[in-house]
């Protein structure tokens, strides 16, 4: 196990990225073997159109293959952020720094020729958020004094 340390600079994120400046995010069902700038709007976004057979579903294509997609809203109170790793002077310390470069409240999730459904990962992700809250909301001591697992002396 490697120790991991890192942080995200979040200072002033709201001023830098007002809500009308949302980042457009697409989750696409393939592994593209490189990262970096790409003319996404030219070769992808501009070909998106509504699927006339399925309400609320979008269609597009990537490298000649048909895609079906759906806009997904983030759960209430949650925001999606884009973090970019910041170059730091090289040290042996596995300390990573990220800077927020944008945010969004909805994204588009794409499948190959298959309508996104309740079984898709991003829907499950939203469910997980709710379940996590049910598991982890600290219990208040007001209703039942006994429920706190620690005796205080």
């Amino acid at each position: 196990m490697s120790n991991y340390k890192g942080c995200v600079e979040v200072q002033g994120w709201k001023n830098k990225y007002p809500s009308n400046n949302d980042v457009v995010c697409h989750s696409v069902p393939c592994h593209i073997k490189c990262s970096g700038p790409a003319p996404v709007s030219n070769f992808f976004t501009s070909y998106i159109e509504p699927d006339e057979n399925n309400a609320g579903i979008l269609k597009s294509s990537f490298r000649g293959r048909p895609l079906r997609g759906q806009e997904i809203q983030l759960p209430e109170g949650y925001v999606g952020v884009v973090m970019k790793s910041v170059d730091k002077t090289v040290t042996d310390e596995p300390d990573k720094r990220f800077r927020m470069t944008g945010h969004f409240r909805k994204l588009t999730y794409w499948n190959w020729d298959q309508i996104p459904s309740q079984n898709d990962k991003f829907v499950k992700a939203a469910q997980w958020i709710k379940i996590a809250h049910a598991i982890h909301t600290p219990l208040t001591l007001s209703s039942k004094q006994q429920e706190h697992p620690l005796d205080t002396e």
Partner: protein
Amino acid sequence: MTAQMKQKEEMKNNNSSSQHKIVFLPESLLNGSIEREKDISFVTLRHPQTGSGALFGFGPSDTSVYEVTQFSEEYRSWFIGESVEQDGILFMMTPFDPLFLLLPYLKQFHNLIFSEVGGLRVFRYNANKVLMWLEQKVENLLRELKRQNICVSGGSRVATFIPSNKEMTPSNEMYLQYVYELLTEYLSEDLGLELKSHLGLETNKAEESSACSTEEPPQKRAKLNDAVEPEEDYSVAVTLESKTKTKESKLTTSQKRLMKADKTGMKNIQSFFKKKIN
């Protein structure tokens, strides 16, 4: 070329391979940071279930702990604005009850002293109270699962995220079993077993194992050692899903006995509270 230079070169290459991470996080985490000018920080902490390192985040403005989970698929990438990110992982930061982190230590040492600002408080591990605390968690989870109508037929989180169809009405026993499995992801093995017997789930061991997903060992929580490694493979859900039918028929054969066990389990919970409130 010195080692440092080499490392620098490597870093450069890495940068071209992965640049951005997409994270869902509570907006409240960011709001507090404006005046305080602090960052969200990530650290590896000992996971209460596995004992090995897992990634946790701390907010800038409060002392809340957040668990960092990741959803990944083998074939998935991001388009982010006018760029491509080959790593299609979705990270999520969700609230984490810090007591889950403390329990293994408290249990181990039984008596532990924490110094606090303005005094000294002694915390003592109390097995009964731990179980009662967990019972509250169980109740909260049961409520949430039923509210969301999440199918709980499988044995692991993977399978159970398939929302329920109308034909399948999961029994209370199945809910309880699922809730138990969710919670054991945050509990040491022995505490998990204590909870199991407390909830009355330990009887019917044979049926249980046949009823609840024998294909996968349940709740093997991913260790989030490194933010780059995809470790929770939710694509397993696809294979599990296809087996749901056969599982279902198995379930109905043991349904009656499961229901019985459930009743005793629920009784346990209620009587437990009654006794203790005075």
